[in-house]
């Protein structure tokens, strides 16, 4: 059930990307989609609903530790891309005076 809900959030993000006319809205939609992909990774790695993968003296079933390690890297990459994209959109606002995709691309 959980991976399906996370995938719905991904599709909401993709729908927002395909219909948003503002640059800042596109960047926020990319951020939403990346966060939802992190949720999909964590959900699909834990099909047996165990405990966190830290070794203690008890013997209990644990979830898969590999997707969690990959997601640390993915969150960092997503944050840096958002930062760089926001910097570039500030610069385009200085040059073109608008934050609309069609107007900005149409003007030479």
């Amino acid at each position, binding site marked *: 059930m959980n991976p*399906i809900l996370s995938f719905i959030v991904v599709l909401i993000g993709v729908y927002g990307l395909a219909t948003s006319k503002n640059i800042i809205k596109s960047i926020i939609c990319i951020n939403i989609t990346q966060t939802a992909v992190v949720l999909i990774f964590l959900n699909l790695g834990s099909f047996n609903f165990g405990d966190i993968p830290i070794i203690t003296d008890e013997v209990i079933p644990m979830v898969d*530790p590999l997707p969690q390690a990959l997601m640390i890297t993915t969150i960092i990459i997503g944050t840096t891309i958002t930062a760089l994209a926001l910097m570039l959109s500030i610069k385009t606002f200085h040059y073109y005076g608008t934050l609309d995709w069609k107007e900005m691309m149409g003007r030479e």
Partner: protein
Amino acid sequence: MTRKIFLIAMLTSIFILFSASIFKSEKYLNDFSKSYYLSNGFYETGSKNIVTGIYLDYRLFDSIFEASILLIVVSGIIFISTRDDKIL
């Protein structure tokens, strides 16, 4: 308006295929690396937190390049934001 309806139709079909594939794949699951990490992680790396053991020992190569992404992006942002005095 037709574009939005078409878009919602395509996204719904992708969603149906995705959920069908998750439900049908439950008998093919393979947990080779999961059992390897949980049984040998503490013995080979010496850390009780296995996620840390993977991030800093088994996959150190990824972590080096992720730190270098931070270096590149910070230097790139500082470079872009400085103003050249010719363009005002």
